[in-house]
C-alpha cells in the first residue's frame, strides 16, 4: 500500500495530463470552438469580402461620364482604365502592403482569433474553481506552477490551431500570399502566435483566477476586447489612424503580431530589422505577462 514509492517525483508531472484535459474538453465539445471561429469568419466575409475596401479604388468602380468618354478613342480609354487600376493597386499596396484587402484583414483575424480563444480559456479557470476541480487538483502533489502552465499551454495550443483554420478559411475567400512568402514563413507565423497567446492567456488567467462568478470576467473581457481589436492594425493600418488612436495602437502587442505576420504572409518584401523588432516586442510582452500571470496566480493558489 505504498503510494509514494511507485510514483515519479518530477517537478512537472501532471502538466501534460492537465493540458490534455483542456484540449479533450475542447475537441470533444466543439461548441465553443465553433463559436470562436464564427465571429472572425463573419468579419472576413463581411468586411473583407462583401464590403471590400479594395474594390473602392479598383478600376471597376470608376466609370467615365459619357461626354468625357466620347473625347477618347477606345484604345485611349483602355490605357486610362489601366492607369487608374494601377493607381488603385498602388494605393492599396502602400496602405495595406498588399493589393488584396481580404488578405490584410485575414491576418488581423488570425490575431483576433488568438485573442478570443485565450479569453475563453481564461474563463475556464472560473469554472474549475466553482465546480471544485481546482480544489481537488490543489490537494494532489501537482506543482502550483504546473496548474497554471497547463492552462496557458492549452490556451496557446488551441489558439494556434484555430488561427490556422482561419487561414485555411481565408484561402477560398480570396487570400493571396505575398511575393516574399515561402512555406517556411508559416513557422514564423506560429512563433508569433505562440508568443502572443502565451502572454494573453497568462494575463486572462491571472485576471480570472480570483473570480468565482462568470459575470466579472465577462465584463472585463468585453472591456478589453474592443480597444484591443480596433486600436490595432486588424482592419486598418496604424499610419492612417488619427494620432490619439495611433498612440494606443502603437503599444498594442496585437498590432506588432499582425504586422509581423503580414510581413511573413502577404507583403511583397520583408523588412528584417522591422521583423526583428516585432518579434522582440511580442517576445518581451509574452515574457513579462507570463511571469506576472504565473506569479500572481501562484501566490493566489498558495493562500
Amino acid at each position, binding site marked *: *500500500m*505504498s*503510494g*509514494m514509492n*511507485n*510514483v*515519479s*517525483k*518530477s517537478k512537472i*508531472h*501532471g502538466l*501534460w*495530463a*492537465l493540458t490534455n*484535459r483542456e484540449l*479533450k*474538453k475542447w475537441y*470533444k*465539445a466543439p461548441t465553443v470552438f465553433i463559436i470562436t471561429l464564427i465571429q472572425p469568419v463573419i468579419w472576413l466575409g463581411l468586411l473583407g469580402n462583401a464590403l471590400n475596401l479594395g474594390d473602392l479604388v479598383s478600376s471597376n468602380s470608376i466609370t467615365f461620364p459619357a461626354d468625357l468618354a466620347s473625347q477618347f478613342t477606345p484604345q485611349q480609354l483602355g490605357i486610362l482604365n489601366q492607369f487608374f487600376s494601377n493607381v488603385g493597386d498602388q494605393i492599396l499596396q502602400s496602405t495595406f502592403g498588399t493589393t488584396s484587402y481580404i488578405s490584410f484583414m485575414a491576418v488581423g483575424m488570425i490575431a483576433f482569433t488568438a485573442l478570443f480563444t485565450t479569453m475563453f480559456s481564461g474563463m475556464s479557470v472560473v469554472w474549475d*474553481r*466553482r*465546480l*471544485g*476541480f481546482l*480544489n*481537488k*487538483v*490543489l*490537494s*494532489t*502533489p*501537482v506543482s502550483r506552477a504546473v496548474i497554471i502552465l497547463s492552462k496557458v499551454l492549452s490556451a496557446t495550443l488551441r489558439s494556434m490551431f484555430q488561427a490556422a483554420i482561419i487561414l485555411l478559411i481565408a484561402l477560398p475567400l480570396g487570400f493571396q500570399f505575398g511575393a516574399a512568402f515561402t512555406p517556411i514563413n508559416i513557422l514564423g507565423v506560429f512563433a508569433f502566435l505562440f508568443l502572443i497567446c502565451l502572454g494573453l492567456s497568462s494575463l486572462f488567467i491571472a485576471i480570472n483566477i*480570483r473570480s*468565482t462568478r462568470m459575470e466579472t470576467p465577462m465584463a472585463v473581457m468585453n472591456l478589453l476586447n474592443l480597444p484591443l481589436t480596433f486600436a490595432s492594425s486588424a482592419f486598418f493600418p496604424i499610419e492612417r489612424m488619427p494620432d490619439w488612436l495611433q498612440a494606443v495602437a502603437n503599444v498594442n502587442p496585437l498590432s506588432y503580431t499582425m504586422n509581423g505576420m503580414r510581413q511573413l504572409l502577404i507583403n511583397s518584401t520583408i523588412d528584417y530589422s522591422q521583423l526583428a523588432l516585432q518579434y522582440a516586442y511580442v517576445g518581451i510582452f509574452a515574457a513579462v505577462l507570463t511571469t506576472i500571470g504565473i506569479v500572481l496566480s501562484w501566490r493566489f493558489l*498558495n*493562500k
Partner: protein
Amino acid sequence: MSEEDAIKAEGLTKVFNGSLVAVDHINFSVKHGEIFGFLGPNGAGKTTTINMLITVLKPTDGKASILGYDIAKQNNEVRYSIGLVPQEYTADEDLTGIENILLCADLYGIPREISKKRALDLLDLVELTEFKDKKVQTFSGGMRRRLELACGLINRPKVLFLDEPTLGLDVQTRAATWNYIKMLKKEFGMTLFMTTHYLEEADALCDRIAIIDHGKIIVVGTPTELKDSLGGDIITVAIKKDVDITGLVEKIEHVKEVKKENDSYMIKSANGEVTAPLIIEALRKEGHVVTRLSLMKPTLNEVYLQYTGRSMRDAEDSGEAIHAKRMMMARRRH
C-alpha cells in the same frame, strides 16, 4: 508509522480577510483506521478545516499533521498520502469515466502501466465498469459520487477525506455510499475523515464525532458517549390528577432526574425500558391513573441541541441551503 495519530490538529485556525474567523483554534486527533466525523451546520467551518488538512488552504495559526507530516512544512508528503472525495462533482463531463480516473492518476505521477490497472480495479470496486467508456455527462448523481470516490482512491491513500459525501443524494444512493465507506475502513484499514450535517450519517458511520459550530469544536466522542452524556432515555408521563409525583418517581430504579413540565413529567433514566413499567406500577399502587406515557431514546439531534442550543434540523439541506453554502465557500477564497 511510529506516529500514533493519523491526523492531529493543535490550535488550528483560519481567519479570512483578517476578520472572519472560520475555524477557531481547534484541537483534535484521529486514530489510525478510524472514521472520524465533523458534524455541524452549514458554515460551521467543516470544509475550511478539510481544506487546511488537505493543504489547499494555509492555516492562519496553529498546526496540524497527517501521518506525522506537517501540513504546512511537508505538504508534498501530505498530498501523496491523502485522497479527497469532494462534495462537488469534479469529474469532467466531457471525459469518460476512465479518462477521469486516469487524469487523477496523472496528477500523482503514477505511471500509466500501473494506473490503468488500478483504474480498472477501482471502477470494478465502485461498480462502474460497464460505464467506463461513457461520458460522465450521462452519469446519474450516484454514479458521479462513486466516480469521485474512485478518483480519490487512485493513489491508494492512507487517509481519505470525504466532504459531505452524501450531500444531495437520494435515500438509496446514500445507503449505498455508506456501505462503500464502511468497506474502505474494513477492507483497507483506511483512516477516514468526513464532514456531514446529517445526524443519521454521523451516527451510522463514525467511530467518533466532533460537533463543530461557529468554527469551534464543542464536544468530541463516540456517538454512544455523546448520547449517554445527555443522561439517558427520556420518559414523559402524564396523570389524571394534579398532584406532585416527583418524590414517588425519584425512588424508582435508574431514574436520574424528574422535572415537571406543564401537565406532564419529564423523567431521565439510564435504562428507559426497565424504568417505564416500574413507573406505571408504582403510580397505580398509589391510585394514580396514567393517561399518557412515552419513551424516547436520545438521538444526536438531542445531543446537538444540548451542546449548541439550536436544533440541527434547522440547518438541514434545502436546495437553497446548499446553494447558499456553495456561494459562501466560493466567496471565501477571495
